[in-house]
């Protein structure tokens, strides 16, 4: 998960940049210095590329080329002649026909709609939960904050697949003690039904990522200058007042970015649905957009339509996070 970087970007970049401006070793500078020239200047101008080379080579191989391949093959149609394609394979430019085919597939479109519904409910809930937890842990009233922080963060170290296996055992009647507990209060839950399984997945995602997002917010809370708290205390502000007027506004960047990364993560949902599929018949092979693309590629062997789907998912994630950023920016100004 790249979800990490967010806050850093908003918060600290400016100061770093300004120090960079002053602190740069420009090759122009070093060449202006008297002394043994030639190879030295050459070395200084080669050095950054030498240092960048391994990263750039791998970046091109695993980011740039695949994106290029995806876009290219999403506009390509492969036709096989002969009964088993033995008479040759022909690729030709297909325009938007793969996209049209992807969007005409009701299940694929429905899966995007399902993720939107999921995101509208789960993301605000999780962000609210981790904000409240962060504020409580950082408040004066919390006991053993170190223990709780570790306990909440622990699920982040459990891979999504393992977390899903774990919860799937708790969702299955007969195996799960949750049903015994529910029976005590007269409930007969069905965690894997057609209407409930989406929220069972939401529970797994919340379980996995709340602690992680909480740590990001805690980090930003810790960066709030102490004078602000002092001033609030002098003014006699209550804990609520401090949280609402000082802490919440100042952790906004962290909230915005954890939200954006949660939106992107929601559209990428895969492992949870795919693993839960084995115990929940309500989950079909096109339950999430990514599962849909995976099925198209590996069950139907239609890589071109799968590429179109992958591009559509990435674009949707980009548009949504961009829209959210725009929305929050407008609200703040």
């Amino acid at each position: 998960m790249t979800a990490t970087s967010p806050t850093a970007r908003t918060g600290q970049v400016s100061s770093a940049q300004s120090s960079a401006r002053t602190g740069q070793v420009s090759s122009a500078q070093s060449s202006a210095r008297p002394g043994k020239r030639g190879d030295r200047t050459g070395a200084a101008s080669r050095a950054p590329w030498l240092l960048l080379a391994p990263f750039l080579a791998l970046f091109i191989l695993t980011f740039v080329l695949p994106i290029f391949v995806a876009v290219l093959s999403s506009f390509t149609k492969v036709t096989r002649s002969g009964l088993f394609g033995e008479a040759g394979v022909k690729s030709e430019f297909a325009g938007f026909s793969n996209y049209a085919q992807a969007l005409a597939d009701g299940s694929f479109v429905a899966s995007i709609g399902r993720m939107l519904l999921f995101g509208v409910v789960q993301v605000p809930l999780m962000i609210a939960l981790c904000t409240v937890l962060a504020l409580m842990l950082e408040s004066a009233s919390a006991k053993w904050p170190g223990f709780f922080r570790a306990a909440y963060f622990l699920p982040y170290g459990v891979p999504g697949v393992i977390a899903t296996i774990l919860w799937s055992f708790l969702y299955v009647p007969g195996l799960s003690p949750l049903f015994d507990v529910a029976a005590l209060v007269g409930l007969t839950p069905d965690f894997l039904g057609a209407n409930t399984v989406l929220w069972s997945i939401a529970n797994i995602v919340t379980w996995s990522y709340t602690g992680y997002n909480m740590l990001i917010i805690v980090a930003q809370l810790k960066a709030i200058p102490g004078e602000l708290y002092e001033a609030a205390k002098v003014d006699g502000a209550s804990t609520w007042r401090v949280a609402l007027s000082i802490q919440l506004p100042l952790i906004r960047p962290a909230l915005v970015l954890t939200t954006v990364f949660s939106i992107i993560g929601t559209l990428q949902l895969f492992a949870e649905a795919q693993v839960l599929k084995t115990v929940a018949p309500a989950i079909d092979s096109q339950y999430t957009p990514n599962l849909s693309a995976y099925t198209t590629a590996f069950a139907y062997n239609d890589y071109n339509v799968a590429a179109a789907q992958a591009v559509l998912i990435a674009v949707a994630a980009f548009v949504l996070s961009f829209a959210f950023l725009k929305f929050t920016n407008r609200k703040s100004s």
Partner: protein
Amino acid sequence: MTATVTPPSTSASPARTSTAGTRRSGSKGRPSTIIVTAVLVVVALYFLIPVYWVVVAATKSTEDLFSTNGFWFAPTVALWDNLAQVLSYDNGIFIRWFLNSVLYAGIGALLATYFAAAGGYALAKYEFRGRNLVFGTILGGVLVPGTATALPLFLLFSQLGLANTYWSVLLPSLVSPFGLFLCRIYSQATVDTSLIEAARLDGAGELKIFHTIGLRVLTPALVTVFLFQLVGIWNNYFLPLVMLSDSGLYPITLGLNNWLSQVDRLPEFYELTTGGVLLSIIPLSIAMVVLQRFWRGGLTEGSVK
């Protein structure tokens, strides 16, 4: 994780002392302490109960798993039998998966951190043509989710004959655009240019300067990058799923899912899966609890100095 990258800044040190201050002065309000702590305990139960359940489940035989209360231990403890079975099943394939995960995550995170450090340092400490273009492109990579590139990467690697090899999972794990981003910020803020100049005058080569001065100063940021990448690779599922068909190359996530999918037909896979899940979450859970300090240490170190 914000402050991870927080360069040593002057405003940060009062922040720390004051948080300590507020904590001490506020703890008089006893009712609020009880309420807050009670809420925190309930939430902690939510996060810990699934883990507790799997510990209990791993101690039971298959019959007990279904016939006894899931939140308490059965009279007969079958933990060692279960674990022995997990470790020996199919000639110890579980151990192999585990080692594969260690290989992918360990080597991947180590090299990824090194490459990100070199790249971030180069982008921060040298001015050269194309620098902004390179950085902008890499920054775009931060926003590209791993699952979006996995499918086309598979097509590409199949053509290169790399699919279904160790390389197919390892190579993409070596790149961390976010890590480079972090290292660049940290280099700008902490690597002293006059130190580099001095080393140059002493006749040190550019690469040597990076390896002796750069890497040492960057250490706190490197720890953070390494941890993120380690967890990221360890938890990755989609990439190995797409790339690997030979179960001998599977990481632990893929392997356990393989076992789970056989539960329907063969109930003894319940024991194998619960035991395997238990064994697989132990190392990372310990790592999380221990490293959580470093994680924060990485963060605050930059700002507290």
